[in-house]
């Protein structure tokens, strides 16, 4: 790229010459340190993983001849397919549940928070100050056999003996993850709600809509970007989460990430682990994009 080919309408001020003449290039310059960092620390490892997924483990050495065998195993072995499906179902449930629970909170702060908006937002972030592990452990305390929930239910006489239904199953993972990611869903939804011009809501009222109709026809469609962001932010990391399933999920809670971990550690089959990682990555991308598309389509139908 040479400066001489620069033929656009930007007028260079004498003080800013050379490469930084255009706003676009200034932008590039500003983000390049971060970009380079991301490239080295993110893209490079991914490339290594992708490369491994086409190789073969040969006891202690790695055979670097190209093969698709790992992908065949990843896609056809029932155990991996089931684990992947379960992980996807779980992360989608977590994402939708989190968004459904986060939306009213964000709505309340944005529309009725008044001058306490910043305070409420600040309070919402407080749980995130403690270690994630501590928060998961707290859920064990709440959901456990002699935990808070069981004690309370026993005390009120709703159940006769402690229930084992709360902890060490998929529901426990769902509850824990939904709680852990709530803040990350509330914030983007809140931002998109803040951007909704209140006059538009008044205009909808003026044209005859009651509270529910104007929410469905104006506020909700205009906050789709926030909902999409929240869904993606929650869905993508939860697919690969293996700490939570391991701590509160019991044997039902085993997810694809646990299987990947096994391949890299005990199983000592890095190429298979890599292939499983790449498969998960591709599948989650497809699922995320199609959920987003579905959501937009649904929002378009409301009109």
């Amino acid at each position, binding site marked *: 790229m040479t400066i001489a080919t620069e033929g656009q309408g930007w007028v260079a001020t004498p003080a800013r010459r050379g490469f930084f003449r255009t706003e676009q290039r200034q932008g590039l310059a500003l983000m390049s340190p971060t970009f380079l960092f991301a490239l080295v620390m993110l893209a490079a490892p991914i490339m290594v993983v992708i490369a491994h997924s086409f190789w073969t483990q040969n006891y202690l050495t790695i055979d670097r001849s190209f093969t698709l065998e790992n992908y065949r195993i990843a896609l056809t072995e029932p155990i991996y397919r089931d684990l992947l499906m379960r992980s996807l179902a779980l992360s989608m449930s977590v994402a939708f549940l989190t968004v459904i629970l986060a939306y009213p909170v964000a709505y309340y702060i944005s529309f009725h928070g008044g001058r306490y908006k910043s305070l409420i937002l600040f309070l919402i972030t407080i749980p995130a100050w403690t270690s994630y592990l501590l928060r998961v452990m707290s859920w064990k305390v709440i959901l456990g056999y002699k935990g808070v929930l069981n004690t309370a239910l026993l005390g009120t006489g709703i159940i006769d003996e402690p229930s084992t239904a709360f902890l060490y199953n998929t529901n426990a993972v769902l509850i824990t993850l939904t709680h852990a990611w709530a803040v990350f869903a509330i914030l983007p939804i809140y931002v998109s709600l803040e951007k909704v011009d209140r*006059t538009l809501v008044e*205009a909808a009222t*003026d044209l*005859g809509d009651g509270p529910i109709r104007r929410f469905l026809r104006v506020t909700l469609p205009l906050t789709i970007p926030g909902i999409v962001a929240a869904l993606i932010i929650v869905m993508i990391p939860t697919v690969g989460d293996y700490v939570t399933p391991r701590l509160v999920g019991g044997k039902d809670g085993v997810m694809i990430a646990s299987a990947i971990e096994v391949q890299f550690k005990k199983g000592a089959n890095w190429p298979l682990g890599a292939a499983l990682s790449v498969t998960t990555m591709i599948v989650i991308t497809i699922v995320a994009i199609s959920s987003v598309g579905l959501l937009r389509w649904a929002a378009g139908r409301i009109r």
Partner: protein
Amino acid sequence: MPDRPMIEIASVTKTYGRFNALDDASLAIRPGEFFSLLGPSGCGKTTLLRMIGGFDTPTRGTIAIDGQPMLGIPANRRPTNMVFQSYAIFPHLDVEQNVAYGLKRLKLDRAEERRRVEEALAQVSLKGLGRRGATELSGGQRQRVALARALVMRPKVLLLDEPLSALDKKLREQMQVELRSLQKAVGITFVLVTHDQYEALAMSDRIAVMFDGKIAQVAAPKDIYQRPVNRQVADFLGGMNFIHGNLVGENGTAIEVETKGFGRVATQRPAHWAVKGGAVTIGIRPERLRVLWDQETARHELAGTVVDRHYFGEITHLVIEIPGMDKPLSVTETNDFGADDIPVGAPIRIAYEPDALVAMAD
């Protein structure tokens, strides 16, 4: 007009904390009228409009539309529609969907809905732009969409909150004419909020001038311009020369005032005005004073000196000092006879008609 008012506002007060946004306002707006609420920002005109539309509730007092009391009736169930200052065009919908927005709830059949949307778009000269996205419109077009979206609902009252303030001068003037003829064509009662006195004068059947939450005067544009009840109204509606005088005689509503410069002036007592002592303010608009050229004479004339001159294209403002008067007079003269060439310092004679002099409260 003998029939009952379209909008009846009775002793409406709106307080925010200890601040009176609107103070005991009463008003009757007639059916089919183009009515303007005129005043500086913060005078309570928008508050009043929003209360008619149902977006604010009066602290005290009642509002009735077409005989129906509006207490407790939310905005979505009132026979009013609003054109918002920011237009509030739904950004996720195209022009047609914006206009049809309110119709959807009426569950009309598709052909009828289409016909009404087309009709509304034609009324505001937007035919053929139906599929245009809301974000691809110019300011003027957005304004028209907002108008069509409200008109398509066939409201009893159309509320307009400074609808032209975001447009440039030329487009604003064009829209004034269009709005006026549209209102005549559809026959709906229009209530317009504006801070632009020319806009109010050009478009309205009647104007209510408001200051500090109070309605100062309600009258037709010509009456309000020519016979303002007080100095504040006179000042807000354009230039005015104020002359101090003393009351020397009164007979019913007719009064006689002794002034410096204009001598003894016979005029009418302004409405809601109690004479305090003998001091009376007399006003005359600058364009009601006329420059006398060469040998020209008039029955009522004053002689003085030009002390300042401001050129405005088609007109010139002359500031003329008259011996014996406290303050110089402002005179507006069209430039067709060369008022823009009168040098500062030149002696000058000006003429006036006695009926242009009005008495007003302070």
